[in-house]
């Protein structure tokens, strides 16, 4: 399958999967489409970086940063808290399936595979959390910058 077709399929599917999961966790109706967009953005950043050969952690962190920024933008645009867009948008990125596989391998007796998967779950969840932290830090700097430049203009 050519890479451009894969790109389109990944984008379409991550969009609709995120919007569909948003139905399950009762996201307000008019936020469903932007939820799909933030899921698409986060996942596609991850996927493109992964295809380019970056490590798993860097790809996840970058995806989470973009996801958090898109959440802030949507929050401004739709006048809703950013968490509405962040939680469903995380859904394709988070290591839920890996966590289940880790336990399955453990119960079935393949300890080595299980330990590998556990470490991967921890690293991926940690790098997503770090991505959110970075976005939050930038947001704080930005709002402080806005405030200080506003004060600067006020000065006689």
């Amino acid at each position, binding site marked *: *399958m050519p890479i451009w077709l*894969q790109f389109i*399929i*990944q984008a379409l*599917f*991550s969009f*609709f*999967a995120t919007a*569909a*999961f*948003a*139905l*399950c*966790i*009762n*996201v*307000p109706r008019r*936020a469903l489409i932007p939820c799909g967009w933030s899921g698409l953005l986060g*996942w596609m950043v991850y*996927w493109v970086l992964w295809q380019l050969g970056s490590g798993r952690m860097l790809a996840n962190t970058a995806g989470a940063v973009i996801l958090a920024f898109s959440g802030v933008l949507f929050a401004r645009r739709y006048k*809703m*808290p950013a*968490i*509405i867009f962040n*939680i*469903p948008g*995380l*859904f*394709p990125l*988070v*290591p*839920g*399936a890996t*966590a*289940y*596989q*880790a*336990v*399955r391998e*453990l*119960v*079935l007796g393949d300890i080595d595979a299980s330990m590998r998967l556990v470490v991967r*779950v921890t690293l991926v*969840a*940690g790098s*997503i*959390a*770090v991505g*959110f*932290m970075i976005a939050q830090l930038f947001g704080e700097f930005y709002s402080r910058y806005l405030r200080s430049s506003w004060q600067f203009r006020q000065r006689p």
Partner: protein
Amino acid sequence: MEIQRQVGTYMERVMDACILAGRLMIANGSEMYRVEDTMRRIAQNAGIEHPVIFTTPTGIFVGLQDRPLTSLGTVDQRVLNIEKISRVNNLSRLFAAQQIDFDQLYAALRDVDRATPTFPLWLQCVGAAVASALLMIIFSGQYDWLDMPLAALAGTGGYLVAYYLGRFTRVYFITQTVAALAVGIIAYVGILLGLGHSIDNILIGGVMPLVPGVALTTSIRDLLAGDLLSGIARGVEAILSAVAIGVGIALIFRFLIPWA
């Protein structure tokens, strides 16, 4: 004396409103720093200068710095319901902008649990089906279209079982294990009937609506933000739920597949 008593009851009502708001947000899956922020805003806008707030995933404490007054609240169930979080947030914002007064805020907070609409069950099932089928494709990266219907069916089955069992029992572990078992049985029977190829991929798709990925990430975010207790408690809950799902699926592999 009368005035003092009235002030006292007002404080109690403000603290009760704080606890109500915090409880709703924790029970529906918000991060801790956001919960504390909302509670502090409500208290400060209602005229309490220095509230002392301590939240954990299972209980909330609110106190006043200069008065011997404390109240507690417990949280006994944690799910994901974004609309309720967003309503509490909106109410707190309206209160801060003084578009509603305290009595309206208090009444509205007490109403959130009852008055928040949810999507009808069939629509939630469609959501689970679509999410399962599509995520199976993008995770496996194998573009095996024939497996999609079976993954959708397994995802819907698991979601329905979790939904109905969740009404009977509060024990999260049992609900998740039985739901994962249902996913496994549907996938296994479907493969026997020749409806799919790869049982591994179908199972990954089918358990997607159940797995605690968001909870795991939220727990690490709580830990990094310094809410150690919340992060650990939530992380343990997420690990337990992953264990429950893994056990449910492993039962299928142990008892059905060796004899196939």
